[in-house]
């Protein structure tokens, strides 16, 4: 583990060193490619400007995750309870993912305005699919012998869901949630690019128009950090929720 971490850190430092060195030796203009040291300085010094926008984007992502969970969990449970519902809804679910999210963004601005709602919905649309699919697969993966046992214990569907299917599917659920939260930033930022008054995507568009490329990179860095934070946050929640699995 330590070796892997050291290797990852080594690769990162090497790439940053190459980038920094190339920028200094070739003297690339900073409005084309700023060196990493300038990006880091901008990310820190511009923090008072970036922070309120980052909070807006973070709120959109968190609300998006909440909305996605509110739809995905009952949907996966219903599709598991009623296989005919799964057969009926599967084509629509797949189609919803085949539509490029960029194409939906302008429509959502028209329908929901420049506020948070459109961005929340964008994030939710991106996240809900991996959560629904992984949760459903988790439910389906429950061994037949356990189902028979619960049947013979006289457990109803929802009782079995609470005691057996849900804990059984939790590792799958968290796998889906991890995928979901990492792409959630994409949904929120695309929404902000198309039409917003606040948020990291909005700030990115403003900085890009003024050729403040160092700020654009600094914002990308903030977004990456937010994605990492969400990833580790879900990982922490997973370890807390399925402690039995990690103790095994």
């Amino acid at each position: 583990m330590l070796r892997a971490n050291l290797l990852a850190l080594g690769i990162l430092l090497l790439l940053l060193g190459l980038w920094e060195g190339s920028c200094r030796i070739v003297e690339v203009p900073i409005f084309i490619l700023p060196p990493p040291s300038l990006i880091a300085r901008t990310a820190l010094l511009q923090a008072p400007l970036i922070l309120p926008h980052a909070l807006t984007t973070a709120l959109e992502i968190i609300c998006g995750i909440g909305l996605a969970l509110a739809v995905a969990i009952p949907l996966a449970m219903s599709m598991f309870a009623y296989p005919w519902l799964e057969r009926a809804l599967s084509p629509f679910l797949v189609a919803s993912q085949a539509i490029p999210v960029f194409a939906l963004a302008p429509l959502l601005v028209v329908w929901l305005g420049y506020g948070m709602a459109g961005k929340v919905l964008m994030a939710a649309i991106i996240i809900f699919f991996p959560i629904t699919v992984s949760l459903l697969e988790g439910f389906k993966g429950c061994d037949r012998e356990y189902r028979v046992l619960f049947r013979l214990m006289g457990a109803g569907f929802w009782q079995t869901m609470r005691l057996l299917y849900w804990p059984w599917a939790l590792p799958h659920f968290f796998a889906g949630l991890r995928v979901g939260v990492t792409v959630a930033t994409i949904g929120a930022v695309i929404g902000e690019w198309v039409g917003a008054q606040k948020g990291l995507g909005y700030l990115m568009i403003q900085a890009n128009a003024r050729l403040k490329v160092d700020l654009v990179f600094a914002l990308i860095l903030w977004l990456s950090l937010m994605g990492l934070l969400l990833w580790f946050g879900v990982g922490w929640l997973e370890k807390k929720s399925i402690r039995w699995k990690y103790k095994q």
Partner: protein
Amino acid sequence: MLSVSGLTKVFDQQPVFSGFDLTVTRNRFAVLIGPSGCGKSTFFDVLTGVTPADAGALRWQGEEVCHLGEVAAYMHQKDLLLPWFSLLENSLLPARTGGGDLHQARSRALQLFSRLGLSGYEQHLPHQVSGGMRQRCALVRTLMFNRDLILLDEPLSALDAITRKSLQSLLVLLQSEFDRTLVMITHDVDEALLLADDLYLLSVKPMAIRDKIVLHGDKPRRFDNPELLAMKETILQQLQGDIEHVAG
């Protein structure tokens, strides 16, 4: 007494069994043995209510039941303990799903834990104890069903020698000390001869009882008895003959 009369199950116009009759008297250990693919698992699924029967009736203690899920407990070769619950919580599952008095069930479970040498391990998770202890916990859970009939689905076939021996003793204990009636399906001749009081030899599809052997003596039996070894040879020849007849 368990009575199965005229039980019929047809798949794709091919009868798996047709007009199947079986009677198991109280406190007997009935073992149904047949070659793989003869329809034992389908029969078990029909008994437990996983698959509906096409015709026939099931009676327990003279009363007709839709399936034995209403009146029987279940034991499998896997201990089927839920890894997210402690041993005590696992043993209380039948009381939780059956809507019984949890306080009373808890006292009874603790008594059984003490009797089966599990005291002090109540709060341990299944992976924290040995295979033998997990099997004993599964036995406590089976007893907590409060049902006189126990269905056994190949309970020993995939176990290592030590756990197998320990579980054989536990099954005998179930019958002798806890006064239960046991019905086991298996394709393992050794397992059948060691444990059965009444051994039913099954034919290939459509499955039917081709022979009934009544066994005597203390259980679990030992294979140093020449009579038992001769019986094993005879049964193996009959099963082999059936398989070759189908293949031919």
